[in-house]
């Protein structure tokens, strides 16, 4: 074959966690002969190294065309594209594509190649030796969760849709390219498998730190996967390019708002974790060894009607109302047991579920299951209100511009104050008793 002799791709970044490189599009336009309107009109955007950027928009908006111009499956009519500082339009297109991973809907596996042969295509084109290719194939199958012995020599027809998609991702990653283009890769699998594949992509990306351009028309998928989302309109014009939090909190215009659709606040809750918000430590705790009268005195002093009984490791056990104490001789068997709790790792959506089930507020536990605080509905609504305010204050200047997304989603919740009042938190079981 004439395609040998290409040296292996070496990531240009020195940062261990980020093996991707920055992609820049400057005034990229695609005009097809014979049509008056350009398919893609003057797109300028920067895709930061090591980030997963989702291009999302309605069918026919040119998002796929935009993506395909990055690896020059479609040649731009005008504009400039650089990948890691290199001008993509200057390079030989075939060689360029070998340095860019490519995964498409329904995987696009070659049906007459086995799983191993499919994964080995790009390393083969790059002229790796057999041993290195075989090792890489095993490594990648392992990485995407396919048993090597079982699947190596199977043909794509003998795999489920989800398994095919895993092979597709493995093939895209085979030569360890710094950049990955994914065109609705999970569009053709069932919702449960899609969810699993999305989780795994996030897990892989956390380890690999590639620069990924991901095209989808599913906004929920974009919110789940994207470090940043570009919402595209007609002719791929950028309506808003920002973090999922910012887009959900403050859609730049009606088109984006329409695309975000109903339930933006609920979607936003999936992006935040309990550890990112300030939950107040307001429950009065007691262990079972304390005498009822002592506890009653303490509760009277604090003005609390409920106390949380914890075990020796401070794990929450039961709620005790002040009325129960007068007749009790020991704290051992009184009160009602604590229902749903949320951990600091939980999303705010899970927390909201627990709050609703528990009747107003839920116990937050730490990594070892110990009591660390309480979260209530006001905390949640307060976080949302504050986010909206922040993003409104920041304005919409993020659209069409790179902005500084470095803070990412974890930072979005920082500094959000407690919203629940102290008095309310002192009466934790009220709704249920």
């Amino acid at each position, binding site marked *: *074959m004439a395609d040998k002799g290409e040296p292996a791709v070496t990531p240009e970044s020195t940062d261990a966690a980020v093996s991707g490189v920055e992609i820049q599009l400057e005034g990229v336009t695609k005009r097809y002969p014979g049509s008056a309107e350009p398919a893609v009109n003057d797109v300028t955007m920067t895709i930061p190294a090591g980030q997963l950027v989702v291009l999302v928009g309605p069918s026919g908006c040119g998002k796929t065309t935009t993506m395909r111009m990055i690896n020059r*499956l479609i040649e731009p009519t005008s504009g400039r594209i650089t990948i890691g500082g290199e001008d993509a339009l200057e390079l030989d297109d075939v060689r360029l*594509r*070998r340095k860019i991973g490519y995964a498409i809907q329904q995987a*696009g596996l*070659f049906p007459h190649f086995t799983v191993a042969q499919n994964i080995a*295509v*790009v390393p083969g084109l790059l002229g790796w030796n057999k041993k290195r290719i075989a090792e890489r194939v095993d490594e990648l199958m392992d990485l995407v969760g396919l048993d090597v012995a079982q699947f190596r020599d199977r043909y794509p027809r003998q795999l489920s849709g989800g398994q095919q998609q895993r092979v597709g991702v493995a*093939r895209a990653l085979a030569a360890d390219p710094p950049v990955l283009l994914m065109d609705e890769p999970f569009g053709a699998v069932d919702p449960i498998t899609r969810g699993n594949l999305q989780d795994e992509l996030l897990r892989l990306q956390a380890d690999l730190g590639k620069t990924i351009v991901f095209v989808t028309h599913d906004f929920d998928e974009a919110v789940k996967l994207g470090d940043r989302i570009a919402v595209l309109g007609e002719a791929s014009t950028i309506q808003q390019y920002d973090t999922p939090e910012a887009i959900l909190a403050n859609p730049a215009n009606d088109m984006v708002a329409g695309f975000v659709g109903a339930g933006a606040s609920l979607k936003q809750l999936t992006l935040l974790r309990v550890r990112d918000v300030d939950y107040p430590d307001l429950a009065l705790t007691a262990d079972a060894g304390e005498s009822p009268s002592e506890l009653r005195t303490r509760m009277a002093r604090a003005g609390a009607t409920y106390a949380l009984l914890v075990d020796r490791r401070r794990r929450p056990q039961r709620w005790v109302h002040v009325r129960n104490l007068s007749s009790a001789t020991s704290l051992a068997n009184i009160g009602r047991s604590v229902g749903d709790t949320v951990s600091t790792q939980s999303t705010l959506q899970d927390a909201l579920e627990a709050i609703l089930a528990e009747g107003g507020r839920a116990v937050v536990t730490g990594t070892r299951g110990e009591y660390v605080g309480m979260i209530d509905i006001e905390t949640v609504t307060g976080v949302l209100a504050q986010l909206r305010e922040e993003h409104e204050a920041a304005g919409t200047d993020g659209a069409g511009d790179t902005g500084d997304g470095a803070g990412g989603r974890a930072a979005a919740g920082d500094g959000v104050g407690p919203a629940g009042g102290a008095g309310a938190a002192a009466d934790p079981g009220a709704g249920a008793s």
Partner: protein
Amino acid sequence: MSDVELTAPTEEAGAKKADRVRLLAQPLAVLVIVGAVLTWALARENDEIEAQSIQAGVLLTKTWEHLLITAVVTAIVVGVAVPLGAMLTRRWARPVAPVFLGIANIGQAAPALGVLVLFFLWTGWEGLWAAALPIAFYSLLPVLRNTIVGIQSVDPALVDAARGIGMSPRSVLLRVEMPLALPMVLAGMRTSLVLAVGTATLAFFVNGGGLGELVDTGYKLNRPAVLVVGAVLAVGLALVVDWLGALAEQLLGPKGLG
């Protein structure tokens, strides 16, 4: 819908079973019929004229000549139609594809004998090549058409994936498009070969030899036995070639598709 889904696999299985039976039965039938006719022809009282044709040496020579013409035709057809077909599916050649298909269509639509004789009148050649070239032209179409259709029916997403991961245009053709089009190409070749074996009986018109000579001799000299032997051998050969084609389709097709 559910009816279709229920019956489709059994129909498919039935067709496969029929194929397998045919693969076994066809050569057996040829063996029995040709064997019976040859035994009859060699054992009967042949007069002098008949004996000149019905003897092992002559029959073998004529069969060999016939096979030779077929082999040359096949080589020409594969050598011309497959690359031409592949070329005509390239983007830059799409406008001219209908022209070539049209020419091949004319080749097949015209009577084989006419093509043969016209070629002879035009070139004045005689012998093997004078027969093989026009017969090849005559049987070009199935391979050409099937190569084009076979390549065109490869899932565009696969071609896109192949290009997208960095295969050169040549690799895309040789490693993805051609292997996946191979079943269609082989089916076309089988049709072409059977056409070629049949048409090769006309080669004697231009001194190309072959089993047609026996048929001609038997007819002109009024010796039905010679005619029958020539005809049966030609039919047997066609069936054997068809069988080989079927075998090739089974064995050479890309793995992982069935």
